[in-house]
Each structure stands twice: as C-alpha cells, then as structure tokens.
C-alpha cells in the first residue's frame, strides 16, 4: 500500500563514469523500524545513501518519501523534506557548545537580530531529554568524547524533525560502553515512528538493533530479510558470493624462502600497534581489512610518512630506520598511494614530468640543467613498457586528459623507472574506481613485478576477492594490527577471512 513506508526506492540506479555504483535497487523502510544495510567496502551502500540524501542525483529510478516521489538537489533539500543523514566524518563546529551546534542555522532569535541563547539551549535540551541521551549541552563539543560528539550529531539531525534518519557507521569509532548509549538513543527515536537506516560493518550490533537487514553486493541489492530470519554466516555468504576464477592471473611461481623484509612488533603510537610480518622476494602479500583497520597506516609507516615508535624493521637482514619517504626510497621501498589525486599526481605537470620526477637526477647535463631530450626519451621508454600498457597520445599531454586507470598506471610506472633499485613495492587500493579490464592488467603487472623482477609486493585492498585472487599470502587486519595470516593454499572461501576482519 503506497504511503505506508517512510521511504521507498524503485529501480534506483546511480552510474559514475565507468562504474555502475548502484544498480536497479528496490528498497523500503517502514516507519518505526531500524533497517540495517550490510555489504563489503565498495558494495554501493554509501553511494545508495548519498543518493537518498541528495548528495548525488539518481541516474534512473525514483525515491518516494512517505509515498510521494521526491528529487533532492542537495542534502539541504532532503533535510527540509524530512530526511536527515549523519555522516561517518564528524561535521561539528568544535568551539561551539552542543546546544549551539544542534540549533545551528535555526537559532531562536531575540529582538529579531540577536541569538536568544537561553531559548536555544532549552530547545536543544528538550530534544536531548526526549530521546534519553546523556550528554552535556553547555560545553564546547571539542571537549566531549567521540561518542558524545556522535550523539550531538544525531540530536542535530533530530532537531529538524525528520521522518527518516540515515546513520552511516555511527559506532565506527566508539567504545563498547558508549555504543550502548547510542543504541538506547536510536531505540527511542524509532519509538517515535521515525524510520532509521543504519549502515554498519559490525554484524553483532546489526543483529542487536536492526529489525530488517538489506545486503548489497556490487551495487545490487541481493537480499532483504527480517533480522530474526538471518544469521551471521548467511549474511557473510550474501556479501561475498561471487565467481572469481577468470579475472585473476595464474599464480604459479612459488616465492623463495629468503627473507626480504622482516617487520617485528612495530607501532606508530596511534593507529598501528605490534604488527609483525615478513615478505620474500617474488611474493605478493595481500593486506585485507576494513578501512581504518591499520593497513594503510602500516604502509605509511613503512614508507616513512608516519613515525615508527617501537619494533624493528629489517631489510635483507639489516635493521633499518625509515624516517622519511626519501629514506624509504633510498632503501628501495616504494609506495603507490591510495588517493591518486591528492598524494600521487601533479596537476600542473604533464605526463612526462609526472613520470620522471623521482629519477630526474639521471638527466642532469651541463651546468646542472635538465637534459630535456634525454628526459623525454626516458619517459617514453617508461610509458611504452609492454607490461604497463599505458594508453596515451603524447608524452607531453596534460595529466587530466588521462583516464583513472591510466593515472594509476603512471603512479606505478614512476617507480618502475627505478626498478633496478627496488626491493619492496606497496600498492594501496590500486584498483579503486577502475574498470574491470584495467583491473585485470594491474593484477598481471603486480604478479610480473613479483615473479619476473623478484620484488616483494604488498597489495592493500578492501575487495576481498581480488586480495585472494592474486596474493601468495593474505594478512588480515583488525583494530590496528595483523590478527591472522593465511597462506594461499589454506584459503578455502572468503568467509574464513571475513570472520577475522569483522
């Protein structure tokens, strides 16, 4: 019956250039229910929610709010229509109090010009008490604990009297005790008839608070069932079930038993603690874990971007200290960063200049000046490397005119120029946002680097299938450290690994 749902979607589809992020999703939330969304990283949950909340507009399909079709141009449109979203990143003004943050933009006024602080405080307090939250409203939010800040965010979302509340991993950074308060708040919100969409990676809490569960995989909704009818293993099977045989190259060569890199109990004093693993020449080691589980942070430590507080790192048996990326590179440890635009590419440099930057010293001629002809020749040689298969028209072309996959290849190629000095190459999410054909080329390139050139390759990814597909060994990260290691032949299915990651 139309109108009996707080929110519905029909055939909702969102296409980004080269990627179908959300595909033909029919979905509904009842008033007064907690509806959890589950799925691996990149399965389309976040994009789906961003379409609901007006951050993105749907490519096809429609969204109905209380039975009426709506098209939100912005999150503000959605807010006015009764749909509030609380994002994973905090969006509070640190030096304002909780009450001031909650009422921001809608303060009660006095004499039509001044903010009526006491009335504003009163409004905020009413909302807080209604949902039974225990949080101080009169201190600056920067002085509050993360969970209290999270509650302030939810109260701010409730201030607009939404019919639907979207929570994107609200408990991701909370301690156990703080979660309980949050569950209590959500429970009270729901009892007022508000529909709640709850994204989480923690299966325990999903079973604890959700009435129904919808599972996404590769942008498609694969199941919606009552939480009572599902169990942990069924959920994991829904999240991962896929055919992985053709996409990945054959892994034949066995890595040697020589220890290239040995890491023992290293910590960065913040996000990484007590990590130990080793890497042999010719070996691809996959790092799998959720975002924030410490895999990227360990890569940054190994590359000298963050400090090593304790533990030892040995390269070919000799202990090394890496205090800057420059030192890491001298030791032959290279990193291809996750955020290509921010940490990798130079927008004002052309293709040639982007490729040669780490090896520019080789083209210094008379008077210490760059020999442009030698530089262009070397850049062309790197770009035409047959294993790389870079598609370009002119070695001087602007970097923005290349596709995402080719930009990724540039970042790898930059280090290929120093291949003879290389020992370890770390690739952080090298296939993110890249179409399937180029992904395949990158997998083959990584195997080549290991098998043919005898490098140690560390491959970081949130996509479990590809980690399993190309790695000789998989290290599973959780809460800042490696919790389990699997050899290739020990892996029977994805569930085995997911159990350790969640």
């Amino acid at each position, binding site marked *: 019956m139309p109108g009996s749902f707080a929110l519905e979607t029909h055939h909702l589809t969102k296409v980004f250039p080269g990627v179908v992020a959300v595909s033909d999703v029919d979905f509904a939330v009842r008033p007064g229910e907690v509806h959890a969304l589950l799925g691996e990283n990149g399965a389309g949950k976040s994009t789906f929610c961003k379409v609901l909340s007006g951050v993105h507009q749907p490519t096809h399909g429609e969204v109905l709010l209380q039975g009426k079709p709506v098209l939100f141009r912005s999150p503000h449109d959605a807010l006015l229509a009764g749909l509030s979203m609380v994002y994973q990143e905090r969006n509070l003004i640190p030096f304002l109090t909780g009450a001031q943050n909650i009422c921001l933009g809608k303060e009660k006024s006095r004499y039509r010009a001044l903010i009526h602080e006491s009335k504003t405080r009163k409004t905020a307090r009413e909302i807080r008490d209604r949902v039974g939250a225990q949080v101080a409203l009169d201190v600056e939010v920067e002085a509050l604990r993360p969970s209290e800040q999270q509650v302030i965010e939810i109260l701010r979302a409730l201030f607009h009297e939404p019919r639907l509340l979207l929570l994107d991993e609200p408990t991701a950074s909370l301690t156990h005790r703080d979660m309980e308060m949050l569950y209590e708040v959500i429970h009270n919100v729901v009892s007022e008839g508000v529909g709640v969409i709850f994204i989480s990676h923690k299966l325990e809490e999903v079973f604890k608070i959700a009435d129904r569960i919808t599972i996404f995989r590769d942008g498609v909704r694969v199941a919606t069932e009552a939480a009572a009818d599902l169990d942990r293993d069924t959920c994991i099977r829904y999240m991962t079930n896929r055919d992985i045989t053709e996409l990945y190259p054959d892994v034949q060569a066995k890595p040697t038993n020589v220890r290239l890199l040995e890491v023992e109990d290293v910590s960065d004093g913040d996000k990484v603690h007590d990590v130990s693993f080793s890497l042999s020449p010719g070996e691809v080691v996959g790092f799998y874990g959720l975002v924030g589980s410490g895999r990227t942070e360990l890569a940054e430590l190994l590359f000298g971007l963050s400090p090593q507080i304790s533990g030892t790192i040995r390269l070919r048996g000799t202990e090394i200290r890496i205090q800057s990326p420059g030192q890491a590179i001298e030791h032959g440890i290279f990193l291809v960063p996750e955020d290509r635009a921010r940490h990798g590419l130079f927008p004002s440099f052309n293709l040639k200049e982007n490729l040669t930057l780490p090896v520019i010293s080789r083209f210094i001629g008379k008077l*210490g000046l*760059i020999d442009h002809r030698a530089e262009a020749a070397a850049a062309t040689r790197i770009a035409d490397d047959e294993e790389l298969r870079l598609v370009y028209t002119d070695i001087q072309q602007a970097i923005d005119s290349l596709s995402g996959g080719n930009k990724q290849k540039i970042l790898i190629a930059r280090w290929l120029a120093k291949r003879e000095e290389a020992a370890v190459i770390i690739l952080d999410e090298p296939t993110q946002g890249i179409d399937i054909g180029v992904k395949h080329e990158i997998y083959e390139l990584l195997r080549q680097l290991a098998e043919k050139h005898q490098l140690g390759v560390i491959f970081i990814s949130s996509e479990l299938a590809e980690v399993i597909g190309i790695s000789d060994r998989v290290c599973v990260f959780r809460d800042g450290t490696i919790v389990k290691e699997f050899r290739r032949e020990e892996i029977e299915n994805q569930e085995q690994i997911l159990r350790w990651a969640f």
Partner: protein
Amino acid sequence: MFLVKYGLLFAAILIWIVFAILQHRFYSPINIFSIIRQASIIGILGLGLGGIVINGDFDMSFAANTSLVGVIAITLMMNEANPVLIFFVGLAIGTAVGAVNSLLVVRARIPAFIATMGMMIFLQGIAKYVTGGAEIYPIHVPMFYKLFGSSYTFGVIPNAVFTFAIIGAAAVLFYGYSKRGRYMYATGGNPDAARHVGLNVRFNRTLAFILGGFLSGVAGLLLISMLRAANPTIGQGYLFPTVITVFLGSLFLKGGVVNAPGIILSAVFMASLSNGFTMIGLPFYAKDIAQGLILVIALLGICVLGRRPMRDIKL
C-alpha cells in the same frame, strides 16, 4: 589557447607600436634602455617572489626588506665604510630576512601571508629608526656603486641592465631547467604528492625564501646605486607592481603557472607601460587604472577562455 599563451607578448608588442606611433622618441636607444632599467628592480624582486610563489608560499616583506637594505647601505656610505663590505652587509641582511621568514612559515607553520606581513611592518619600523624617518644621502658615493647602478656603458647602456640580465638568465635556467626548480614546482603543485615521491618539501620552500631575501638585498643595493640616496620607504612602492608582475607573468607561456621568462617579460611590459604613459603625457592616474585593468582582464582570459583553474596560485 594560443592567444592566452602568448597574449602577454602580443599585448607588449601592441603597446610598443602604439607608443612609437604617438611619440617617436619612444624608440630611441636611450629610452629603450631606460625602460629596461626601470624594469630591473621589479624584475629582480619578481624573480625572488616568483620562486616563493612557485613553492606555494607568499612573501609580503620583500619590498620592506629592500628598503632596509637600502637605508643601511646608504648609512654605511655616509660613515665611509668599505664599499665591498657594504655590499656584503646588504646581501647578508636581505638573505637573513628571507631565512627568518622561512623559519616562521616553514618551520613554525604560520600562514605565509600573515607572518611576512608582520615582518614587513617590523622592517619598515627598523628602516625608519635607522634614518630617523628622513631622506638620507652620502656626500660621496663610492665609484663601485656608480659603476654598479648609475653609470652607462658606451654612453647608452645603463649598467643596472647587466645585473638584471645576469639574474634573469640564472633564474630562467634555475626555475625552468634545473632539478631543484622542478622540485619546487612539484612542491607548490602538490606538496603531499611531492612528499610521496621523496622530495624534501621543507628544504625547497626554505630555499625559495632565502633566495627571495637575497634578491631583495640585490634590489636594495641596485636601487640606492641608481638613486644615490635612500629613505625608509624607498622599496615599498615596488610591493604591488612586483606582485602584479609575478601574476601577470604567470599567464605567459604556462597559462597560470608562475615562470621566470613570464616575470621578465611582464616586468618589461609594466615598465614600458609606465614609461609610455609618461612620454605621451597621460594623467598621473592613468597608469594605475591601466595596470589594474590589464591584470584583471588577463586573469579573466585564463580562467574563462583557458578553462583552466589557476590551481598553483593560492591567493
């Protein structure tokens, strides 16, 4: 895009033709050299500021630095100090100011605009203290300085032009063709990515501030050699023309990326404009109106026609 790339050169040629038609003396060798002489101070300061901007920073204090170097050099001349010593003292002061700026901005991470603004006010105060606020001039200017800044070779070429030419050539090679220059562009273009390829971002930024300070010292010495006198605001008038020169010059060849040939051409262009306006007898305010308009129109050209945001210029 061709129009944008060479627009500044076309504009320069255009004004040279217009001025030559309106005033036949515009093309006399003496006037041409006089234009280059005028351009030399802005050009040298611009090449220093340009390096700082290439690294993604900014410097407000370079003109005040020039003033301070000028008044101290003249004061030393009045006390009949050794001319060579004066020269080195001047360069040392300029360089030291650049080094302090780098400590404030690169090490202590104060926003460059504000830190160097503070430095500017401070240096202006010191310059006023040194002179007592007045115009000062030595009875006797050492021969060295006459040769450096105010004499003419073969009776027509002002010697100041040589200093500008040498620094200009060095800057073109350094910024455009050396390894360190490339690293500086990388630093300003994307500091995070520069770190990821192992560049020492702090070193590059520090070096640019120090070079900028050194060139302010050179400009200060050249300026007092031309004028044979100094006052506490002798350099301050060059602040905005130099800033305009650097950004106008960024439009030449590289469409919004600061570069040495652009700065040199744009310094000559600005000097031609000011010289030409005086020679054809336009009112005193015409120059300001023209300079402001030219800068804004040129930037419009880049941002609208070029369809390319000026990413490397963060001000």
